[in-house]
Protein backbone atom coordinates (compact mmCIF):
# COMPACT_ATOMS: atom_id res chain seq x y z
CA UNK A 1 0.00 0.00 0.00
CA UNK A 2 2.81 2.27 1.03
CA UNK A 3 4.66 1.43 -2.16
CA UNK A 4 1.69 2.33 -4.37
CA UNK A 5 1.23 5.62 -2.53
CA UNK A 6 4.87 6.56 -3.15
CA UNK A 7 4.60 5.74 -6.87
CA UNK A 8 1.48 7.96 -7.17
CA UNK A 9 3.31 10.78 -5.37
CA UNK A 10 6.15 10.53 -7.90
CA UNK A 11 3.89 10.37 -10.97
CA UNK A 12 1.71 13.40 -10.12
CA UNK A 13 4.50 16.02 -10.45
CA UNK A 14 5.72 14.30 -13.62
CA UNK A 15 2.26 14.58 -15.22
CA UNK A 16 1.97 18.21 -14.11
CA UNK A 17 5.38 19.04 -15.70
CA UNK A 18 4.46 17.40 -19.01
CA UNK A 19 1.06 19.12 -19.44
CA UNK A 20 0.85 21.82 -22.23
CA UNK A 21 0.36 25.46 -21.31
CA UNK A 22 -2.46 27.03 -23.27
CA UNK A 23 -3.04 30.75 -23.60
CA UNK A 24 -6.60 31.76 -24.17
CA UNK A 25 -8.32 33.61 -25.70
CA UNK A 26 -6.29 34.61 -28.75
CA UNK A 27 -7.46 36.81 -31.59
CA UNK A 28 -5.52 36.06 -34.77
CA UNK A 29 -7.82 38.16 -36.94
CA UNK A 30 -6.53 40.70 -39.41
CA UNK A 31 -8.49 43.97 -39.50
CA UNK A 32 -8.66 43.88 -43.27
CA UNK A 33 -7.80 41.50 -46.05
CA UNK A 34 -4.63 41.98 -48.00
CA UNK A 35 -4.13 41.91 -51.73
CA UNK A 36 -0.84 40.31 -52.70
CA UNK A 37 0.79 39.81 -56.07
CA UNK A 38 2.95 36.78 -56.67
CA UNK A 39 6.42 36.95 -58.16
CA UNK A 40 7.74 34.79 -60.97
CA UNK A 41 8.24 31.90 -58.53
CA UNK A 42 4.71 32.16 -57.20
CA UNK A 43 5.83 33.66 -53.86
CA UNK A 44 3.69 36.25 -52.08
CA UNK A 45 4.70 38.31 -49.06
CA UNK A 46 2.48 40.04 -46.53
CA UNK A 47 4.66 42.65 -44.87
CA UNK A 48 2.56 43.91 -41.97
CA UNK A 49 1.99 40.44 -40.49
CA UNK A 50 5.26 39.11 -41.86
CA UNK A 51 4.10 36.02 -43.64
CA UNK A 52 5.26 34.76 -47.01
CA UNK A 53 4.38 31.58 -48.86
CA UNK A 54 4.14 30.02 -52.29
CA UNK A 55 0.73 30.04 -53.95
CA UNK A 56 1.61 27.69 -56.81
CA UNK A 57 -0.15 24.63 -55.26
CA UNK A 58 -3.40 26.59 -55.03
CA UNK A 59 -3.28 27.57 -58.71
CA UNK A 60 -2.40 24.02 -59.59
CA UNK A 61 -5.39 22.81 -57.62
CA UNK A 62 -7.69 25.34 -59.29
CA UNK A 63 -6.45 25.18 -62.87
CA UNK A 64 -4.12 22.22 -62.95
CA UNK A 65 -1.36 24.54 -64.21
CA UNK A 66 1.37 25.96 -62.00
CA UNK A 67 2.57 28.46 -64.63
CA UNK A 68 -0.56 30.49 -63.98
CA UNK A 69 0.73 31.44 -60.53
CA UNK A 70 3.15 33.99 -61.99
CA UNK A 71 2.19 37.66 -61.24
CA UNK A 72 -1.21 36.77 -59.90
CA UNK A 73 -3.23 38.75 -57.42
CA UNK A 74 -4.60 36.85 -54.46
CA UNK A 75 -6.73 38.02 -51.57
CA UNK A 76 -5.96 36.77 -48.09
CA UNK A 77 -7.33 37.36 -44.63
CA UNK A 78 -6.74 35.67 -41.31
CA UNK A 79 -9.80 34.85 -39.24
CA UNK A 80 -9.99 35.43 -35.52
CA UNK A 81 -9.45 31.71 -34.89
CA UNK A 82 -6.23 31.71 -36.91
CA UNK A 83 -7.21 30.29 -40.33
CA UNK A 84 -6.06 31.95 -43.52
CA UNK A 85 -8.74 32.41 -46.17
CA UNK A 86 -7.29 32.69 -49.64
CA UNK A 87 -8.96 33.15 -53.01
CA UNK A 88 -8.52 34.96 -56.27
CA UNK A 89 -10.46 36.08 -59.35
CA UNK A 90 -11.71 33.09 -61.41
CA UNK A 91 -11.14 30.72 -58.45
CA UNK A 92 -14.09 28.45 -57.78
CA UNK A 93 -13.09 27.92 -54.16
CA UNK A 94 -11.94 29.69 -51.08
CA UNK A 95 -9.03 27.85 -49.47
CA UNK A 96 -8.87 27.68 -45.71
CA UNK A 97 -5.27 27.26 -44.64
CA UNK A 98 -3.93 26.38 -41.24
CA UNK A 99 -0.34 26.90 -40.14
CA UNK A 100 1.72 23.75 -39.90
CA UNK A 101 5.44 23.10 -39.47
CA UNK A 102 7.16 25.36 -42.06
CA UNK A 103 4.03 25.20 -44.15
CA UNK A 104 0.41 26.10 -44.60
CA UNK A 105 -1.92 23.13 -44.86
CA UNK A 106 -5.25 23.26 -46.66
CA UNK A 107 -7.73 22.66 -43.89
CA UNK A 108 -10.84 23.14 -45.98
CA UNK A 109 -11.76 23.97 -49.55
CA UNK A 110 -15.04 25.86 -49.77
CA UNK A 111 -16.72 25.76 -53.14
CA UNK A 112 -18.30 29.13 -53.87
CA UNK A 113 -19.07 29.26 -57.57
CA UNK A 114 -18.59 26.60 -60.24
CA UNK A 115 -18.24 29.39 -62.83
CA UNK A 116 -15.42 31.07 -60.91
CA UNK A 117 -15.43 34.21 -58.78
CA UNK A 118 -15.65 37.60 -60.55
CA UNK A 119 -14.25 40.06 -58.04
CA UNK A 120 -13.95 38.50 -54.61
CA UNK A 121 -13.16 40.53 -51.49
CA UNK A 122 -12.90 39.46 -47.84
CA UNK A 123 -14.02 41.41 -44.81
CA UNK A 124 -13.32 40.62 -41.17
CA UNK A 125 -16.48 40.27 -39.14
CA UNK A 126 -16.94 39.44 -35.45
CA UNK A 127 -18.09 35.84 -35.95
CA UNK A 128 -17.03 35.04 -39.49
CA UNK A 129 -15.23 36.10 -42.65
CA UNK A 130 -17.40 37.90 -45.12
CA UNK A 131 -16.84 37.13 -48.78
CA UNK A 132 -18.34 39.51 -51.32
CA UNK A 133 -18.38 38.64 -54.98
CA UNK A 134 -20.36 41.21 -56.94
CA UNK A 135 -23.89 41.08 -55.54
CA UNK A 136 -23.30 37.86 -53.61
CA UNK A 137 -22.33 37.93 -49.99
CA UNK A 138 -21.22 34.81 -48.14
CA UNK A 139 -20.54 34.20 -44.47
CA UNK A 140 -17.60 31.86 -44.12
CA UNK A 141 -15.95 30.01 -41.29
CA UNK A 142 -13.23 27.42 -41.43
CA UNK A 143 -15.94 24.78 -41.64
CA UNK A 144 -17.59 26.23 -44.75
CA UNK A 145 -20.39 28.59 -45.80
CA UNK A 146 -22.75 29.39 -42.95
CA UNK A 147 -25.11 31.78 -44.72
CA UNK A 148 -25.37 32.90 -48.31
Amino acid at each position, binding site marked *: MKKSFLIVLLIIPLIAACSTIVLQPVNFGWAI*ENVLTSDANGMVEEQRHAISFNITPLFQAEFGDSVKADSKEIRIICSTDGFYFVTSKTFKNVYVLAPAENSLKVDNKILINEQGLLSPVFNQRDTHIELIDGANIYKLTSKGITVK
Partner: protein
Amino acid sequence: MRTLKLISASILFLLIAVNIINAQSDFDKVQNFKTKYKQIEESIKNASDLNQCFDIENEIIKLKGDFTADKKLLDNSLYPLNFDSSIDKLVSALETRKGDFTQITELKEEVSGLKEKITVLDKQNYALLEQIKDLDAGRRKDAATIESLRKLTDQLRSSLRKRDELVVGIIDSLLAEFVNHPFTLNEAERISFDKKIEYNNLFYNVERTISDNIEFITVTKLEPDDFADIKEKYSSFSKMWKQIGPRLGDVYLNRAEKTAAIERIDSRFGQWNYAINSQMWRSINSLFLEKNIKLLSYNSGSEFTERVTGFIEDEIKNIGVKKSEESENMYYTFADTLWFEKIQPEWVPVLIENRMLEEAQKDTIEARIANWKAQIVPEGLAWWIYIIGIVVLILIILGITSVLKKKQVS
Protein backbone atom coordinates in the same frame (compact mmCIF):
# COMPACT_ATOMS: atom_id res chain seq x y z
CA MET B 1 -54.04 42.19 -49.87
CA ARG B 2 -52.35 42.49 -53.26
CA THR B 3 -51.19 46.03 -52.43
CA LEU B 4 -49.73 44.80 -49.15
CA LYS B 5 -47.76 42.11 -51.00
CA LEU B 6 -46.47 44.72 -53.44
CA ILE B 7 -45.33 47.02 -50.62
CA SER B 8 -43.63 44.11 -48.83
CA ALA B 9 -41.84 43.08 -52.02
CA SER B 10 -40.69 46.66 -52.60
CA ILE B 11 -39.32 46.95 -49.05
CA LEU B 12 -37.51 43.62 -49.43
CA PHE B 13 -36.02 44.72 -52.75
CA LEU B 14 -34.94 48.02 -51.20
CA LEU B 15 -33.28 46.25 -48.27
CA ILE B 16 -31.44 43.91 -50.63
CA ALA B 17 -30.37 46.85 -52.81
CA VAL B 18 -29.09 48.82 -49.82
CA ASN B 19 -27.24 45.75 -48.62
CA ILE B 20 -25.61 45.34 -52.01
CA ILE B 21 -24.62 49.00 -52.16
CA ASN B 22 -23.15 48.76 -48.65
CA ALA B 23 -21.29 45.59 -49.51
CA GLN B 24 -17.90 47.08 -49.97
CA SER B 25 -14.47 45.73 -49.30
CA ASP B 26 -12.94 47.00 -46.05
CA PHE B 27 -9.63 46.83 -47.85
CA ASP B 28 -10.95 49.27 -50.47
CA LYS B 29 -12.20 51.61 -47.75
CA VAL B 30 -8.79 51.66 -46.12
CA GLN B 31 -7.06 52.11 -49.46
CA ASN B 32 -9.46 54.94 -50.29
CA PHE B 33 -8.65 56.64 -46.99
CA LYS B 34 -4.91 56.18 -47.55
CA THR B 35 -5.11 57.62 -51.07
CA LYS B 36 -7.01 60.71 -49.91
CA TYR B 37 -4.63 61.07 -46.97
CA LYS B 38 -1.63 61.03 -49.31
CA GLN B 39 -3.26 63.56 -51.62
CA ILE B 40 -3.79 65.94 -48.70
CA GLU B 41 -0.22 65.38 -47.52
CA GLU B 42 1.06 66.33 -50.99
CA SER B 43 -1.23 69.37 -51.10
CA ILE B 44 0.22 70.56 -47.79
CA LYS B 45 3.76 70.22 -49.12
CA ASN B 46 2.93 72.04 -52.34
CA ALA B 47 0.75 74.78 -50.84
CA SER B 48 2.02 78.14 -52.01
CA ASP B 49 -0.03 80.51 -49.85
CA LEU B 50 -2.30 80.77 -46.84
CA ASN B 51 -5.49 80.56 -48.94
CA GLN B 52 -4.49 77.15 -50.22
CA CYS B 53 -3.89 76.11 -46.61
CA PHE B 54 -7.47 77.09 -45.73
CA ASP B 55 -8.80 74.97 -48.61
CA ILE B 56 -6.71 72.03 -47.39
CA GLU B 57 -8.13 72.53 -43.90
CA ASN B 58 -11.62 71.99 -45.35
CA GLU B 59 -10.42 68.85 -47.13
CA ILE B 60 -9.15 67.46 -43.82
CA ILE B 61 -12.50 68.19 -42.16
CA LYS B 62 -14.27 66.45 -45.05
CA LEU B 63 -11.93 63.44 -44.85
CA LYS B 64 -12.61 63.11 -41.16
CA GLY B 65 -16.37 63.37 -41.72
CA ASP B 66 -16.41 60.87 -44.61
CA PHE B 67 -14.53 58.19 -42.70
CA THR B 68 -15.80 58.61 -39.14
CA ALA B 69 -18.21 55.69 -39.74
CA ASP B 70 -15.19 53.47 -40.46
CA LYS B 71 -13.15 54.70 -37.50
CA LYS B 72 -12.93 51.27 -35.88
CA LEU B 73 -11.78 49.65 -39.10
CA LEU B 74 -9.22 52.39 -39.72
CA ASP B 75 -7.99 52.27 -36.11
CA ASN B 76 -7.15 48.60 -36.67
CA SER B 77 -5.74 49.04 -40.14
CA LEU B 78 -3.63 52.19 -40.12
CA TYR B 79 -0.80 50.67 -38.15
CA PRO B 80 1.27 52.23 -36.52
CA LEU B 81 -1.14 55.19 -36.56
CA ASN B 82 -4.90 55.10 -36.04
CA PHE B 83 -7.74 57.21 -37.41
CA ASP B 84 -7.45 60.09 -34.92
CA SER B 85 -3.66 60.22 -34.93
CA SER B 86 -3.66 60.19 -38.75
CA ILE B 87 -6.01 63.19 -38.84
CA ASP B 88 -3.95 64.89 -36.08
CA LYS B 89 -0.81 64.35 -38.12
CA LEU B 90 -2.36 66.08 -41.11
CA VAL B 91 -3.62 68.97 -38.96
CA SER B 92 -0.20 69.39 -37.38
CA ALA B 93 1.58 69.38 -40.78
CA LEU B 94 -0.90 71.96 -42.04
CA GLU B 95 -0.35 74.19 -39.00
CA THR B 96 3.42 74.07 -39.56
CA ARG B 97 2.93 75.01 -43.21
CA LYS B 98 0.60 77.84 -42.21
CA GLY B 99 3.31 79.05 -39.83
CA ASP B 100 5.76 79.25 -42.76
CA PHE B 101 3.38 81.47 -44.67
CA THR B 102 2.61 83.65 -41.66
CA GLN B 103 6.35 84.17 -41.22
CA ILE B 104 6.73 84.88 -44.91
CA THR B 105 3.89 87.41 -44.77
CA GLU B 106 5.55 89.17 -41.83
CA LEU B 107 8.89 89.10 -43.62
CA LYS B 108 7.25 90.39 -46.78
CA GLU B 109 5.87 93.38 -44.90
CA GLU B 110 9.23 94.04 -43.30
CA VAL B 111 11.13 93.61 -46.55
CA SER B 112 8.60 95.68 -48.46
CA GLY B 113 9.73 98.67 -46.36
CA LEU B 114 13.36 97.75 -47.01
CA LYS B 115 12.74 97.52 -50.76
CA GLU B 116 11.30 101.02 -50.88
CA LYS B 117 14.25 102.38 -48.91
CA ILE B 118 16.69 100.62 -51.21
CA THR B 119 15.02 102.09 -54.28
CA VAL B 120 15.24 105.61 -52.82
CA LEU B 121 18.90 105.08 -51.93
CA ASP B 122 19.65 103.68 -55.40
CA LYS B 123 18.36 106.87 -57.00
CA GLN B 124 20.12 109.06 -54.44
CA ASN B 125 23.44 107.25 -54.92
CA TYR B 126 23.18 107.48 -58.67
CA ALA B 127 22.56 111.24 -58.52
CA LEU B 128 25.46 111.72 -56.10
CA LEU B 129 27.85 109.72 -58.25
CA GLU B 130 26.91 111.76 -61.30
CA GLN B 131 27.45 115.03 -59.43
CA ILE B 132 30.84 113.88 -58.19
CA LYS B 133 31.86 112.84 -61.71
CA ASP B 134 30.77 116.23 -63.10
CA LEU B 135 32.67 118.16 -60.48
CA ASP B 136 35.73 115.96 -60.80
CA ALA B 137 35.77 116.31 -64.58
CA GLY B 138 35.62 120.14 -64.40
CA ARG B 139 38.85 121.98 -64.99
CA ARG B 140 38.39 124.38 -62.14
CA LYS B 141 39.33 122.87 -58.83
CA ASP B 142 38.97 125.90 -56.58
CA ALA B 143 38.38 125.67 -52.85
CA ALA B 144 34.59 125.78 -53.27
CA THR B 145 34.60 122.90 -55.78
CA ILE B 146 36.86 120.80 -53.59
CA GLU B 147 34.62 121.47 -50.61
CA SER B 148 31.52 120.50 -52.62
CA LEU B 149 33.26 117.32 -53.75
CA ARG B 150 34.14 116.50 -50.18
CA LYS B 151 30.56 117.02 -49.01
CA LEU B 152 29.10 114.98 -51.84
CA THR B 153 31.56 112.19 -51.16
CA ASP B 154 30.55 112.16 -47.50
CA GLN B 155 26.87 112.04 -48.47
CA LEU B 156 27.49 109.22 -50.91
CA ARG B 157 29.53 107.28 -48.37
CA SER B 158 26.76 107.52 -45.81
CA SER B 159 24.06 106.72 -48.35
CA LEU B 160 26.00 103.67 -49.58
CA ARG B 161 26.48 102.48 -46.03
CA LYS B 162 22.72 102.65 -45.38
CA ARG B 163 21.98 100.72 -48.57
CA ASP B 164 24.63 98.12 -47.78
CA GLU B 165 23.14 97.63 -44.33
CA LEU B 166 19.71 97.00 -45.85
CA VAL B 167 21.07 94.42 -48.27
CA VAL B 168 23.03 92.77 -45.47
CA GLY B 169 19.74 92.64 -43.51
CA ILE B 170 18.05 90.78 -46.38
CA ILE B 171 20.93 88.29 -46.67
CA ASP B 172 20.97 87.86 -42.90
CA SER B 173 17.28 87.01 -42.77
CA LEU B 174 17.73 84.47 -45.56
CA LEU B 175 20.77 82.97 -43.84
CA ALA B 176 18.75 82.62 -40.65
CA GLU B 177 16.10 80.69 -42.59
CA PHE B 178 18.71 78.47 -44.20
CA VAL B 179 19.99 77.63 -40.71
CA ASN B 180 16.54 76.14 -40.02
CA HIS B 181 16.94 73.91 -43.10
CA PRO B 182 20.43 72.47 -42.62
CA PHE B 183 19.96 69.55 -45.02
CA THR B 184 19.37 69.33 -48.75
CA LEU B 185 16.15 71.14 -49.61
CA ASN B 186 13.11 69.33 -50.94
CA GLU B 187 11.11 70.68 -53.88
CA ALA B 188 8.57 72.55 -51.75
CA GLU B 189 11.34 74.21 -49.73
CA ARG B 190 13.13 75.18 -52.94
CA ILE B 191 9.97 76.85 -54.24
CA SER B 192 9.50 78.67 -50.95
CA PHE B 193 13.10 79.98 -50.90
CA ASP B 194 12.90 80.93 -54.57
CA LYS B 195 9.88 83.11 -53.81
CA LYS B 196 11.68 84.83 -50.95
CA ILE B 197 14.80 85.39 -53.04
CA GLU B 198 12.78 86.76 -55.96
CA TYR B 199 10.71 88.93 -53.67
CA ASN B 200 13.84 90.42 -52.12
CA ASN B 201 15.40 90.88 -55.53
CA LEU B 202 18.48 89.37 -53.95
CA PHE B 203 20.66 88.91 -57.04
CA TYR B 204 20.00 92.42 -58.33
CA ASN B 205 20.60 93.98 -54.92
CA VAL B 206 23.88 92.17 -54.32
CA GLU B 207 25.18 92.99 -57.81
CA ARG B 208 24.08 96.61 -57.45
CA THR B 209 25.82 96.88 -54.07
CA ILE B 210 29.07 95.65 -55.60
CA SER B 211 28.77 97.96 -58.64
CA ASP B 212 28.02 101.03 -56.53
CA ASN B 213 30.91 100.29 -54.23
CA ILE B 214 33.29 99.80 -57.14
CA GLU B 215 32.11 103.07 -58.69
CA PHE B 216 32.43 104.86 -55.36
CA ILE B 217 36.08 103.93 -54.96
CA THR B 218 36.76 104.74 -58.62
CA VAL B 219 35.31 108.25 -58.68
CA THR B 220 36.23 109.50 -55.23
CA LYS B 221 39.54 110.40 -53.68
CA LEU B 222 39.92 108.31 -50.59
CA GLU B 223 42.14 108.38 -47.54
CA PRO B 224 43.85 105.36 -45.96
CA ASP B 225 41.17 105.14 -43.25
CA ASP B 226 38.46 105.04 -45.93
CA PHE B 227 40.21 102.11 -47.57
CA ALA B 228 40.44 100.31 -44.23
CA ASP B 229 36.63 100.65 -43.89
CA ILE B 230 36.03 99.63 -47.49
CA LYS B 231 38.24 96.57 -47.13
CA GLU B 232 36.41 95.58 -43.98
CA LYS B 233 33.06 96.01 -45.70
CA TYR B 234 34.26 93.94 -48.66
CA SER B 235 35.52 91.15 -46.36
CA SER B 236 32.31 90.86 -44.36
CA PHE B 237 30.12 91.03 -47.48
CA SER B 238 32.25 88.47 -49.25
CA LYS B 239 32.20 86.17 -46.22
CA MET B 240 28.42 86.43 -46.06
CA TRP B 241 28.13 85.62 -49.77
CA LYS B 242 30.41 82.60 -49.34
CA GLN B 243 28.02 81.37 -46.65
CA ILE B 244 24.84 81.88 -48.63
CA GLY B 245 26.22 81.06 -52.09
CA PRO B 246 26.25 77.25 -51.74
CA ARG B 247 22.73 77.28 -50.25
CA LEU B 248 21.51 79.36 -53.19
CA GLY B 249 23.17 76.78 -55.43
CA ASP B 250 21.03 74.15 -53.71
CA VAL B 251 17.85 76.21 -54.20
CA TYR B 252 18.58 76.65 -57.92
CA LEU B 253 20.05 73.20 -58.51
CA ASN B 254 18.42 72.74 -61.90
CA ARG B 255 18.12 76.33 -63.09
CA ALA B 256 20.99 77.28 -65.34
CA GLU B 257 20.22 81.02 -65.49
CA LYS B 258 20.24 81.29 -61.70
CA THR B 259 23.41 79.23 -61.39
CA ALA B 260 25.00 81.59 -63.92
CA ALA B 261 23.83 84.60 -61.86
CA ILE B 262 25.46 83.10 -58.74
CA GLU B 263 28.72 82.57 -60.64
CA ARG B 264 28.54 86.12 -62.03
CA ILE B 265 28.21 87.52 -58.52
CA ASP B 266 31.14 85.36 -57.39
CA SER B 267 33.30 86.95 -60.08
CA ARG B 268 31.95 90.44 -59.26
CA PHE B 269 33.30 89.99 -55.74
CA GLY B 270 36.69 89.29 -57.29
CA GLN B 271 36.39 92.48 -59.34
CA TRP B 272 35.41 94.45 -56.24
CA ASN B 273 38.50 93.27 -54.39
CA TYR B 274 40.70 94.00 -57.41
CA ALA B 275 39.20 97.51 -57.73
CA ILE B 276 39.89 98.29 -54.05
CA ASN B 277 43.50 97.07 -54.30
CA SER B 278 44.16 98.91 -57.57
CA GLN B 279 42.70 102.10 -56.19
CA MET B 280 44.83 101.83 -53.06
CA TRP B 281 48.01 101.43 -55.11
CA ARG B 282 46.93 104.31 -57.37
CA SER B 283 46.33 106.54 -54.33
CA ILE B 284 49.81 105.72 -53.00
CA ASN B 285 51.32 106.37 -56.41
CA SER B 286 49.59 109.74 -56.61
CA LEU B 287 51.58 110.76 -53.51
CA PHE B 288 54.83 110.02 -55.35
CA LEU B 289 53.60 111.83 -58.44
CA GLU B 290 52.75 114.92 -56.39
CA LYS B 291 56.45 115.05 -55.50
CA ASN B 292 57.51 114.42 -59.08
CA ILE B 293 58.72 110.92 -58.31
CA LYS B 294 57.81 108.68 -61.20
CA LEU B 295 57.67 104.97 -60.50
CA LEU B 296 56.68 102.25 -62.92
CA SER B 297 53.13 101.00 -62.26
CA TYR B 298 52.61 98.37 -59.56
CA ASN B 299 49.66 96.36 -58.36
CA SER B 300 50.98 94.19 -55.57
CA GLY B 301 53.26 94.36 -52.55
CA SER B 302 56.16 92.69 -54.33
CA GLU B 303 55.86 95.00 -57.36
CA PHE B 304 55.66 98.01 -55.07
CA THR B 305 58.78 96.90 -53.17
CA GLU B 306 60.59 96.26 -56.41
CA ARG B 307 59.72 99.70 -57.86
CA VAL B 308 60.60 101.62 -54.71
CA THR B 309 63.88 99.80 -54.07
CA GLY B 310 64.69 100.15 -57.78
CA PHE B 311 64.15 103.88 -57.56
CA ILE B 312 66.39 104.12 -54.45
CA GLU B 313 69.12 102.07 -56.15
CA ASP B 314 68.99 104.42 -59.14
CA GLU B 315 69.24 107.45 -56.87
CA ILE B 316 72.23 105.92 -55.04
CA LYS B 317 73.91 105.22 -58.37
CA ASN B 318 73.33 108.83 -59.38
CA ILE B 319 75.12 110.23 -56.34
CA GLY B 320 78.08 112.08 -57.73
CA VAL B 321 76.52 112.15 -61.20
CA LYS B 322 73.73 114.50 -60.19
CA LYS B 323 74.44 117.64 -58.24
CA SER B 324 74.80 116.71 -54.57
CA GLU B 325 72.12 119.26 -53.66
CA GLU B 326 69.70 117.53 -56.06
CA SER B 327 70.51 114.13 -54.63
CA GLU B 328 70.07 115.37 -51.07
CA ASN B 329 66.78 117.06 -51.93
CA MET B 330 65.47 113.90 -53.53
CA TYR B 331 66.46 111.87 -50.48
CA TYR B 332 64.80 114.25 -48.04
CA THR B 333 61.65 114.50 -50.19
CA PHE B 334 61.42 110.75 -50.56
CA ALA B 335 62.40 109.68 -47.07
CA ASP B 336 61.28 112.45 -44.78
CA THR B 337 58.35 114.02 -46.61
CA LEU B 338 56.88 110.94 -48.22
CA TRP B 339 57.90 107.66 -46.63
CA PHE B 340 58.30 108.47 -42.96
CA GLU B 341 55.64 111.17 -42.86
CA LYS B 342 52.83 109.75 -45.00
CA ILE B 343 53.29 106.28 -46.45
CA GLN B 344 54.81 104.47 -43.49
CA PRO B 345 52.48 105.80 -40.76
CA GLU B 346 49.25 106.03 -42.78
CA TRP B 347 49.32 103.51 -45.65
CA VAL B 348 51.70 100.74 -44.61
CA PRO B 349 49.53 99.56 -41.64
CA VAL B 350 46.46 99.32 -43.89
CA LEU B 351 48.46 97.48 -46.55
CA ILE B 352 49.92 95.04 -44.04
CA GLU B 353 46.59 94.47 -42.31
CA ASN B 354 45.01 93.57 -45.63
CA ARG B 355 47.95 91.38 -46.63
CA MET B 356 48.83 93.61 -49.54
CA LEU B 357 52.34 94.18 -48.20
CA GLU B 358 54.46 91.99 -45.98
CA GLU B 359 56.41 93.17 -42.98
CA ALA B 360 59.60 91.86 -44.61
CA GLN B 361 58.95 93.94 -47.74
CA LYS B 362 58.53 97.05 -45.61
CA ASP B 363 61.82 96.25 -43.84
CA THR B 364 63.56 95.80 -47.21
CA ILE B 365 62.41 99.25 -48.34
CA GLU B 366 63.47 100.85 -45.06
CA ALA B 367 66.86 99.15 -45.16
CA ARG B 368 67.39 100.62 -48.65
CA ILE B 369 66.35 104.07 -47.41
CA ALA B 370 68.87 103.76 -44.55
CA ASN B 371 71.55 102.76 -47.04
CA TRP B 372 70.59 105.71 -49.26
CA LYS B 373 70.82 108.02 -46.24
CA ALA B 374 74.28 106.66 -45.45
CA GLN B 375 75.40 107.52 -48.99
CA ILE B 376 73.93 111.01 -48.92
CA VAL B 377 75.00 111.84 -45.36
CA PRO B 378 78.00 109.53 -44.64
CA GLU B 379 77.76 108.33 -41.06
CA GLY B 380 81.58 108.14 -40.61
CA LEU B 381 82.02 111.83 -41.42
CA ALA B 382 79.30 112.83 -39.04
CA TRP B 383 81.06 110.88 -36.23
CA TRP B 384 84.39 112.69 -36.79
CA ILE B 385 82.59 116.03 -36.87
CA TYR B 386 81.18 115.28 -33.43
CA ILE B 387 84.67 114.29 -32.10
CA ILE B 388 86.29 117.40 -33.55
CA GLY B 389 83.45 119.53 -32.12
CA ILE B 390 83.97 118.04 -28.65
CA VAL B 391 87.77 118.46 -28.85
CA VAL B 392 87.35 122.11 -29.93
CA LEU B 393 84.89 122.67 -27.10
CA ILE B 394 87.28 121.18 -24.55
CA LEU B 395 90.14 123.32 -25.89
CA ILE B 396 87.98 126.45 -25.62
CA ILE B 397 86.99 125.60 -22.06
CA LEU B 398 90.62 124.87 -21.14
CA GLY B 399 91.72 128.13 -22.80
CA ILE B 400 89.12 130.16 -20.94
CA THR B 401 90.03 128.50 -17.62
CA SER B 402 93.76 129.14 -18.05
CA VAL B 403 93.10 132.78 -18.96
CA LEU B 404 90.94 133.18 -15.86
CA LYS B 405 93.62 131.54 -13.64
CA LYS B 406 96.31 133.83 -15.04
CA LYS B 407 94.13 136.87 -14.29
CA GLN B 408 93.62 135.71 -10.70
CA VAL B 409 97.39 135.16 -10.19
CA SER B 410 98.22 138.58 -11.58
